[in-house]
């Protein structure tokens, strides 16, 4: 991909930022290595961009990996249509600011069959609007490699997934038949139609993500920071009540409180936490003393035991 970025930017780069601590530097080096390797070995890579904190880190590392060149692949956002409004606004600002190629894809079945998280249940809704949509978007683009921001510390089945996660032509993951992955030598050989999902942040933990965001001053969707916001309580989760499509059920009342989100997804399926953390320092302190994992706020992981593995086998990230 051609890039007209002038060479002069090289000389304009700031030298004032303190260097990363060796731990984060090692993780960053590893992620950059993976980005470059995939970009060099595959014909048509794409980067899954979900607008959340992990995606923000992924994007930042990608910019570093290819600097002073442009990121040599597009970003793909699988848009369910039910993301937080602030996420979409943030996405558009980022794409403009960094001059990125963004592909946004929504499963047409969503509108055609009026599929919503309220009417179809989180499991079925996710199957169609996320997993199926992702498969459609990848097929449509003919991508043979897709970067994702998943980390091994997130969930039990992820702990066993490779950095290059091989997928069959119908995007299935076979956990029992993964390619061995030794040293930092990755096997990028695939046949036509087959692909890999590549996870440069595999070895990062949630605390690493936040400490890196702080060290690198990476912009984030404001929903991660505590603020007085309207919400309703439903199925034990605090659901943000800003979208007009959220209808109050009998017995529910609109409440207001200082809340924030540890992860971001579709607003009806993502629970807020009570928190006073308004800065990155606050968040890291909160995290270091936290007793629940970040995915606790995600309805989709809890549908059934092993549900993430099931979704992954079907092609979910």
């Amino acid at each position, binding site marked *: 991909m051609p890039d007209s970025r002038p060479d002069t930017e090289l000389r304009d780069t700031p030298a004032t930022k303190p260097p990363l601590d060796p731990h984060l530097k090692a993780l960053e080096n590893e992620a950059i290595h993976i980005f470059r390797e995939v970009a060099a070995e595959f014909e048509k890579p794409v980067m899954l961009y979900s607008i959340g904190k992990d995606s923000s880190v992924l994007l930042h590392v990608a910019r570093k990996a290819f600097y002073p060149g442009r990121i040599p692949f597009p970003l793909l956002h699988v848009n369910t249509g039910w993301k937080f409004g602030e996420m979409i606004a943030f996405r558009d600002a980022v794409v403009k600011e960094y001059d990125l190629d963004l592909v946004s894809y929504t499963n047409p079945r969503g509108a055609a069959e009026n599929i919503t998280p309220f009417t179809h249940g989180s499991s079925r809704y996710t199957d169609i609007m996320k997993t199926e949509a992702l498969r459609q978007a990848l097929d449509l683009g003919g991508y043979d490699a897709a970067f994702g921001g998943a980390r091994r510390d997130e969930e039990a089945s992820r702990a066993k997934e490779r950095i290059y996660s091989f997928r069959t032509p119908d995007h299935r993951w076979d956990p029992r038949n993964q390619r061995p992955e030794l040293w930092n030598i990755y096997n990028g050989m695939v046949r036509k139609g087959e692909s890999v999902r590549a996870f440069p942040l595999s070895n990062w933990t949630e605390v690493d993500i936040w400490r890196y965001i702080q060290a690198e001053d990476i912009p984030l969707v404001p929903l991660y920071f505590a603020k007085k916001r309207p919400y309703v309580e439903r199925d034990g989760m605090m659901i943000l009540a800003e979208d007009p499509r959220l209808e109050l059920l009998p017995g529910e009342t609109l409440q207001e409180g200082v809340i924030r989100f540890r992860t971001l997804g579709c607003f009806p399926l993502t629970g807020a936490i009570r928190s006073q953390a308004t800065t990155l320092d606050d968040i890291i302190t909160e995290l270091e003393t936290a007793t629940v994992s970040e995915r606790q706020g995600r309805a989709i992981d809890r549908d*059934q*035991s092993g549900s993430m593995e099931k979704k992954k086998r079907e092609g979910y990230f």
Partner: protein
Amino acid sequence: MTAQAATATALSQEALSRDIDAPALTVVEKAAPAVETQKVVRDSRPLRLITCGSVDDGKSTLIGRLLWDTKAVKDDQAATLTRDSGLGRQNDLGLPDFGLLLDGLQAEREQGITIDVAYRYFATERRSFIVADTPGHEQYTRNMATGASTADLAVLLVDARAGLLEQTRRHATIATLMGIRQFVLAVNKIDLTNYDQARFDAISAEFRELALSLGVRQVTAIPLSALKGENVVYDGKASMPWYDGPTLVETLELATVRSAQTVGFRLPVQRVCRPGESFRGYQGTVAGGSVKPGDSVVILPSGMVANVSKIVTFDLVRNAAVAGDAITLVLDRQVDVSRGDVIAAIDSAPQTGLAFDAQIVVLQPDGIEPGKRYWLKSGSRRQRVTVRASTKLDLASGKWTASETLEMNAIGKVHLAFDELAIFDPYEQNRNTGAFILIDPDTNNTVAGGMITGKRSAHGGLSDRESRVVLSLPVDLAEQLMASETFASRRDEADVRRTSVRRAKDLLGEIDG
């Protein structure tokens, strides 16, 4: 939402809302850590380690204990554990079944087995850790080799009642082959021997002898009880006043991370960055040594030379880069460099040649077929190779026996023959540039992991690296010699420099002197 989902939500909710002071799942208090509470800045790279042992030795319990006592397990994950373990799978102390925490896949939960390598993360105030957790029995060679390939240290687990087993020797042998030079012997279930010091001393002495026979000197033996949490994260002084050594976590905190910084500079080129006509940079991760602007480098396999003009990163133009750094290198002149090339220090370049010797670990059911052409990938370089096996390691006896075939899980010595120049360092000298994988061109699967032991001359025998001949010749005579068939066929084994008569005389004088 489905009924199942509602139940799950309710359970997690219970975990969420429960009082911190009255944990629902534990009878053993998650007490305040005995480690120093003062904030220590993490000043070290993460330590990568591998745990070797079987379910019988209590490996799952040990890893579970590490994660639990360093608070890497969160309450909702513990709640899921309790939910899944039901009544039958709690351990004697009322802690959740740690095995379930580690067995991430549905099939594993259903069948009570562990497949494949899993990676675990925990951290203390001093350091963070990446644990490659591999099953002890099934396919352990394949999985151990995978886990050990990136590890700096191996924790070998034994049951204090059983002592060293044949598998302990196997695990130690594989770990050593893969380049690990730091061992921790975790003598587990010491509580079941009534904390018998003599027993512990005997086991550790026997192990030290085993380690020494493999050439490993750095051994720490620790008596511990993973179940009770003694000498894992918290000390076991109350039960074992006779032991004044470090806990497992203290040992891990002090372990060293392998460094490829002391060897010659190597940059395997991953890609060429050309954002515009005015910029041409070579991107890759430094695989050995260090580099700074002004350094002279050689590009392999072409042999062209250049000087480094600058090191570019996103943050700043740097004045040096060391092993492990992902960089963009700019050279002072137009040279032909592409992906798969290696940019190396001109005064200590890696070996190039068409034939190398290596040790490999076979990873797939089809084994290694004699004479078959595979793909070999090392660093960013991928090329065709023919593999011929010579000997196979018998893990039980530690002896090498002649063998022309290597089946799955076999460890063997092989000859590699290339069509195009290959570029390697011996694995002993550089784990980055001495390692490779073999890929089956028919299945595209990774069929073996390998470690280079040395270069072979085109005539069969290992090249004699102990002695060399330095000739000083007039240019015309040298050119005639180099044009000869014999010389040309072994060109890659010769070092040739052009210099002045006076300098040549000085150099020879230096050798004589």
